[in-house]
């Protein structure tokens, strides 16, 4: 059934210029910063006026109400200063607002504004995510520098824990959007043949939550940090200074970002597919996005609920998480991990989506077992909701529950195995091209083997008893997240740079980046398994002297890893901003619909809604139809179809 939309009144042309719209000064990130700062001051003042005389505040010298109100009003100011609230506020006032943010705008200023073009939002996300990732990466180097010696210290113990907490939180909360943000928003409408996303305002707002969350989270370092780490366990999270308020508020903001982004992604993929874009032709990135979006929609509200409870305990002295006052720290642990473990998979699934998308292009073969891969993704997403208590095996939970969660956790290796085997099947007897994106995708498989197999071990209760809280677990999840997700993202950046920027990144520099990153990554994280088995616990800045040599090896390797990533940053920015090596159209000879529209991609993505003729992975089949008819003789509709069969 076709769902028709009006041609423009609701913004349906997906980014064309608005004729006759008034030009001139427009709100942007800088006005947002000013308004955000003023909002923070107002909220802080209000909090002091309300709670400045409370005994708790006088005794501790700490007014959490003022801090949290500052963050709330600061965020409202940020959104007002960016102009994000103009449209709904005017609508509520009965004024028909102009469709600001749709017009095509040359130059770089559009990247600092609230915009409704999915491609601009994708690029905003790309640079935002890279910025957050490298900030957290620098913090990781701070951690490793401290661990050069068990006795000589670079940081104080509290500062060390602040850095660990900042690194973990920034990586785990920000990187949830590292694929959906830059790649989902940019590519999904192009891949499904849509002129726009379903809810462009939500999509854009989802991005603008992230700088606010980043600034607030980083500000914790200047407010005494939070030594609870990224898991924020009570009672430590209740006892902490105001840095913990920054943790809970920034995490909640990212939660809202994930929810809004997921609503948009789900609605877009379900409703905005071009004619002929059957579910069985949906690109793997889109499958990755929709499975992740559903997972986020069901899990993130639980996290926000938990953070809200933490905020109440800290600010108005409720006692929900603190056992000493009648609450339960188990409540937080369960609320947190009900989000936290699906989160691990919502980091992994998009990485697999990217990998499945790119592998066939360089293998020049169809994706082996498309339906198996989709089943694997859906299976992982569903099972991810039934494993969270494996994080609590050592917490004093009901021991009778442990076998159940051990079983469900081990079961998840089956759909994960589907995806892995589909990748290997795609490579089987392929005449591979070892370009830089392909090297990164192959590394994904190599790295994930370590992360995945050790995951089966740590889900086993007897092994978990031994390695819980050790560097073994840390090595495991760094292999699954950095070894899989970040390598996939790096490969995708090299792969999609011609589509995003019209620039083909230098192959030689890319290979230098890849090999140094691949070797240094493994040299950094592989010894951590050994360190964990030798008894090194996480989150300590002093450790047994006998472990110093291994730690020094790891630290030096991490410096090489940091240099490799710095090399990427310098060469990437240099090529985009200075040398701009022009790329031919579709340099990888991809069948993907997104590559068929040329460069630069018009603001509305397609002149006409295309008609999809075949799947995107029919490589090597001489009888395969083109992926789509971009200029169908009979326009299907002004709007879009719900993916009906043709």
């Amino acid at each position: 059934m076709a769902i028709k939309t009006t041609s423009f009144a609701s913004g349906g042309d997906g980014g064309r210029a608005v004729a006759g719209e008034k030009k001139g000064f427009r709100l942007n990130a800088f006005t947002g910063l000013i308004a955000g700062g003023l909002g923070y001051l107002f909220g802080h003042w209000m909090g002091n006026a309300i709670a400045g005389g409370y005994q708790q505040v006088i005794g501790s010298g700490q007014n959490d109400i003022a801090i949290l109100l500052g963050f709330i009003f600061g965020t409202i100011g940020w959104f007002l200063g960016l102009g994000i609230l103009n449209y709904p506020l005017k609508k509520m006032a009965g004024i028909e607002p102009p469709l600001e943010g749709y017009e095509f705008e040359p130059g770089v200023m559009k990247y600092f504004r609230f915009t409704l073009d999915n491609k601009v939002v994708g690029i905003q996300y790309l640079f935002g995510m890279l910025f957050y990732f490298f900030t957290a990466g620098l913090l990781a180097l701070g951690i490793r520098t401290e661990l050069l010696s068990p006795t000589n210290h670079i940081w104080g113990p509290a500062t060390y824990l602040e850095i660990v907490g900042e690194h973990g939180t920034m990586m785990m909360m920000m990187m949830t959007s590292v694929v959906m943000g830059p790649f989902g928003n940019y590519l999904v409408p192009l891949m499904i043949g849509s002129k726009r996303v379903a809810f462009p305002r939500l999509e854009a707002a989802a991005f603008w939550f992230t700088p606010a969350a980043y600034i607030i989270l980083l500000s914790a370092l200047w407010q005494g940090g939070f030594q609870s780490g990224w898991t924020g366990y009570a009672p430590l999270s209740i006892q902490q200074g105001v840095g913990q308020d920054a943790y809970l508020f920034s995490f909640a903001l990212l939660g809202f970002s994930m929810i809004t982004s997921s609503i948009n992604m789900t609605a877009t993929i379900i409703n905005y597919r071009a004619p002929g874009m059957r579910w069985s032709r949906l690109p793997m990135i889109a499958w990755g996005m929709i499975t992740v979006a559903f997972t986020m929609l069901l899990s993130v509200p639980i996290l926000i609920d938990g953070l809200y409870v933490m905020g109440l305990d800290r600010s108005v002295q409720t006692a929900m998480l603190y056992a000493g006052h009648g609450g339960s720290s188990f409540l937080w642990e369960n609320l947190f991990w009900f989000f936290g473990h699906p989160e691990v998979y919502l980091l992994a699934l998009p990485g697999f989506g990217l990998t499945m998308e790119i592998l066939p292009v360089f293998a020049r073969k169809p994706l082996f077992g498309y339906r198996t891969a989709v089943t694997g993704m859906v299976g992982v997403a569903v099972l991810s909701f039934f494993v969270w208590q494996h994080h609590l095996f050592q917490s004093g939970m009901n021991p009778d529950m442990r076998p159940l969660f051990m079983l469900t956790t081990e079961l998840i290796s089956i759909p994960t195995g589907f995806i892995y085997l589909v990748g290997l099947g795609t490579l089987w007897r392929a005449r591979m091209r070892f370009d830089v994106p392909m090297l990164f995708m192959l590394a994904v498989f190599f790295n994930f083997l370590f992360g995945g197999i050790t995951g089966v071990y740590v889900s086993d209760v007897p092994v978990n008893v031994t390695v819980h809280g050790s560097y073994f677990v840390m090595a495991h999840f760094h292999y699954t997240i950095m070894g899989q997700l970040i390598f996939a993202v790096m490969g995708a950046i090299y792969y999609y740079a011609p589509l995003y920027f019209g620039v083909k990144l230098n192959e030689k520099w890319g290979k230098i980046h890849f090999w140094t990153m691949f070797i240094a990554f493994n040299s950094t994280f592989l010894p951590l398994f050994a360190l964990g088995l030798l008894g090194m616990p996480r989150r300590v800045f002093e450790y047994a002297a006998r472990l110093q040599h291994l730690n020094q090896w790891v630290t030096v390797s991490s410096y090489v890893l940091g240099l490799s990533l710095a090399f990427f940053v310098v060469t990437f920015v240099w090529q985009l901003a200075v040398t701009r090596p022009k790329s031919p159209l579709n340099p990888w000879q991809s069948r993907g619909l997104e590559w068929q529209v040329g460069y630069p991609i018009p603001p509305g993505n397609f002149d006409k809604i295309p008609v999809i003729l075949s799947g995107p992975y029919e490589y090597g089949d001489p009888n395969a139809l083109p992926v789509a008819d971009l200029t169908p003789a009979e326009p299907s509709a002004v709007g879009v179809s719900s993916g009906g069969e043709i």
Partner: protein
Amino acid sequence: MSKGARAGAVLVSFAVGIALILYGIFGYLRSSPAVVSAVPSASQPNSVNLIMQVDGAVGVGPHPNWVGYWVQDASGVWHQTTLVKVPVNTNVHVTVYEYDSGGALRNAVWSQVAGVQGGTVTLNGTSLRVINPSLTTGNGIAHTIVVPGLGIQVPLYGVGASAKNFCATGPCNTSEAHTVTKFSFFSGNQTHKYRWQCFVPCGLGYLNGNGGPMTTLGYMGGFIEVVGK
């Protein structure tokens, strides 16, 4: 914009970014309280004196109402810190002026004295192996000095919270209500950096007292660094 201008803009951006990172590291994260060195006298090269006071509110810095330590340097100047250096192979004679009020202990283990020379401390001139919180006027234990790496544990007896001349904010002086605890320990025969910490929850205003000053360097935890002579 010309290629040269773009290159310049990129280089300036990188320089600004690096400057911000360095400022973040050295301007904030690497900042720490002062370090006070205990130095031996010419006549007694194998011993040093370390004089400290504990105040209910340190009176200075970013958290003036937090409980914390002041340490006196060789010239008699007080510094608000918990970082001290002592020489290796040296007897360290510690004097602690306690100006904070105390309370009951949740675990009697913390009333024991351990790891000091003779196994005793002198509290207001009386030699003791155990500091009972209900000793004399029942002021309770205010804090403990615990150095796990050296096996040292010393409870510090508090002053009465209702004392007329109670020191409200530091640095305090001996005309105000206080107790005096003295003990000695050997710094060991190797250089090392020993962590020390108060193990009695004492952060007023924090649940269980474990937040704020209890987790912050310069207040209720610090380092004793044993350095070469």
